[in-house]
């Protein structure tokens, strides 16, 4: 552990459960987008993957309160001044050495969770009027809402795609511009951090 950047040390920021959550979520969400857009018209598999994603989201919500420090909402969600401060030196060509999510990345993580939560809710409510792919909660919300939910679910899918694009662009930006690898820590858990 000698050649590390000055004052930075290598610590285990992402716990195994969180890493498992991350990669499972990535795989299931991508699979479900593909199934939704190009999959069979009888969407049984899309439904089951959706339920699995809901289970993952519930885990993340719980982990955000009882998980290790870097996983906690109270720890990574920062106020406007911390976000603005991080923004002012975002374009410096040096690694952030953030202990987990940085203040701006935290917004992106939260946005992803909210967008996926939206997909879960609108998906459960959807009634595309095909008598086959009816969300289990469609009967509880009224037919007009259930029908509209299909449109909300499609719009939400586009939002998720945009957030995935931003997420990948940010990783590339950190890799190329800031010379910081964010992928390896999400695989091994270990990350160079400074402070805290």
């Amino acid at each position, binding site marked *: 552990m000698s050649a590390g950047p000055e004052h930075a040390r290598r610590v285990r920021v992402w716990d195994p459960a969180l890493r498992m959550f991350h990669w499972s979520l990535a795989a299931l969400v991508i699979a479900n987008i593909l199934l939704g857009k190009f999959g069979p*018209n009888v969407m049984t598999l899309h439904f089951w993957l959706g339920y699995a994603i809901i289970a993952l989201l519930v885990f993340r919500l719980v982990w955000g309160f009882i998980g290790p420090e870097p996983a906690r909402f109270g720890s990574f969600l920062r106020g406007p001044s911390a976000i603005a401060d991080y923004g002012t030196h975002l374009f410096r060509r040096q690694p952030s050495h953030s202990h987990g999510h940085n203040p701006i990345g935290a917004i992106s993580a939260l946005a992803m969770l909210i967008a996926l939560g939206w997909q879960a809710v609108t998906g459960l409510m959807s009634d*595309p*009027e*095909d*008598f*086959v*792919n009816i969300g289990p909660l469609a009967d509880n919300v009224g037919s007009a809402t259930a029908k509209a939910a*299909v449109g909300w679910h499609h719009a939400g899918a586009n939002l998720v795609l945009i957030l995935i694009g931003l997420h990948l662009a940010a990783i590339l930006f950190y890799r190329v511009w800031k010379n910081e690898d964010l992928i390896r820590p999400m695989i091994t858990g270990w990350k160079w951090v400074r402070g805290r």
Partner: protein
Amino acid sequence: MRLIALTATLATTLLPVLAHADAAEDALEARHGYMKMLALNMGTLSGMAKGEIAYDEAAASKAGSNIEALSGYAVADLFIEGTAMGEVDDSEALPAIWENPDQFAQKFAALSEAAAGAGEAVKGGQENVAPALQKLGGTCKDCHDDFRKK
């Protein structure tokens, strides 16, 4: 003379407009009725597939046959020009219907194909309803995805 001429002019210019609006509204109304009839019969099959309605071979077969008969209707007459979303109230038909008429026709052909023999397919037991229903419903979804307002 002038009055007659004016009236005649008005009549010849306005009447087609009025007639046209009527035709659009008629087509829309008929279309919604057509979809409603499909939905009623699909609802019967769906209820039986889910076990919410007790399986009744005759009723299931009737619903299947109705869908089969409906799928043979020449629906092009129900999707005349001027009945897209925004052109008449309550229309949910996307302009894509008139931009890709061949693709639209294909989707309806898929329904006819799925519906062929539906009246027979749902006979013989409750377990036969779901596969037939899924085959039919899949074609509903496929067309709604591309051609109906979301």
